[in-house]
């Protein structure tokens, strides 16, 4: 008999529904049937581990991936990966990607009339340390227009992919910036039902993280599903 120590169910209100027509790309892509509830098995409570370094070297400085430095406001982006009980999640892979300071992605499908920056790709990755910490040096991404509705603009954001200890804990999300006037109008940000959960997606300006005469500091913690304290026999 295998004992299964399950991960908590996703908390009501903390997660968006895929059926969210305000974001028009969901209309033809969201499932119409409710998902089938599956009691977690060994398959769901396990997942890739990253201690051996197989995911490749950390890429933590997004300002030094080319010959010169990218334009834009330099930003230290740091935080921790935690579970719901506040315990650090060590040795897990964090991947980020973002637009350049002008709001343009280094991607063939992005034809927005803003300049590419030959010194900026906008990709980083890092395996969290023993305290669950990560830290990147980048530039603040610009806002950009998108064709969701007329004259729609995405709030400034950085994309995050985080694994956590199990297949059940894996998430892909976006980090936003405090005080961004576009947040109020952004249907992707507003797809998270609870206000407190939405605010979890907004980073915090941290003067202690900023480095004098060098870079602004933004702090963003990622909180993954926690785990039941005791195993369930059946």
């Amino acid at each position, binding site marked *: 008999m295998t004992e299964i120590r399950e991960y908590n169910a996703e908390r009501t209100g903390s997660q968006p529904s895929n059926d969210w027509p305000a974001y028009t790309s969901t209309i033809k892509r969201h499932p119409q049937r409710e998902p089938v509830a599956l009691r977690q098995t060994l398959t769901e409570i396990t997942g890739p581990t990253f201690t051996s370094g197989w995911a490749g070297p950390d890429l933590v400085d997004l300002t030094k991936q080319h010959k010169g430095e990218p334009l834009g406001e330099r930003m230290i982006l740091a935080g921790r990966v935690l579970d719901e009980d506040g315990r650090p999640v060590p040795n897990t892979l964090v991947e980020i990607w973002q637009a350049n300071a002008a709001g343009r992605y280094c991607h063939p499908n992005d034809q927005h009339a803003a300049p590419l920056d030959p010194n900026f790709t906008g990709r980083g990755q890092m395996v969290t340390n023993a305290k669950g910490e990560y830290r990147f040096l980048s530039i603040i991404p610009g806002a950009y227009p998108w064709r969701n509705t007329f004259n729609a603009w995405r709030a400034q954001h950085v*994309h995050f992919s985080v694994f956590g200890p199990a297949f*059940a804990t894996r998430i892909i999300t976006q980090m936003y910036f405090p005080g961004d006037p576009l947040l109020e109008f952004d249907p992707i940000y507003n797809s998270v039902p609870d206000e407190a959960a939405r605010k*979890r997606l907004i980073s915090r300006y941290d003067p202690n993280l900023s480095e004098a005469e060098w870079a602004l500091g933004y702090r963003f913690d990622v909180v993954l599903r926690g785990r039941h304290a005791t195993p369930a026999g059946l």
Partner: protein
Amino acid sequence: MSAKLIPTGTQTAGPYLHIGLTRPEWADLTDAGKAKGDKIVLEGRVIDGDGTPLPDAIVEIWQANAAGKYEHPDDVQDKPLDPHFRGFGRSCTDKDGIYRFTTVKPGAVPGRGNTLQAPHIAVSIAARGLLHHLFTRVYFAGDSLNPSDPVLSSIDDPALQKTLVAESKGKANGAAVWHFDIVLQGKGETVFFDF
């Protein structure tokens, strides 16, 4: 212990996920053929409600090795690990919506209680237009353990059950080819799981 922090909500991976997530080498789980077990190719299309393939989806898989053991500290079964098999794969769909993995057929793993799960692969799908990734499972048509698999057999409607079962498409370069389409919406919509 009561949970104290609100979990981070998911957001769409968006149309430019390739910048951060493209890792073509992760589509081969066999360490260039060195992994133990029967080599398989798992491939298919990701399709929307109009039947249009998604050129901008990311498919990730997680599975046991050929002996039915996960490379993870919580798998305490007395079964061998394979130094050439990690069990995780990622494939971004191409312009025709096709994803493709080279892997090995997983062994059976225990289910809850005293049950045995048929060989299966866990799948996660993310894309523009998906605010939350989707979870599904791939089973293998004709496997003798399928009828007694607790998850598969919990789905009563045979038409729905079929959406979780890959079809055999013969062999290519010595590997059995398994086809598994992921239909996000509408006719033939894949069964997705919540756990």
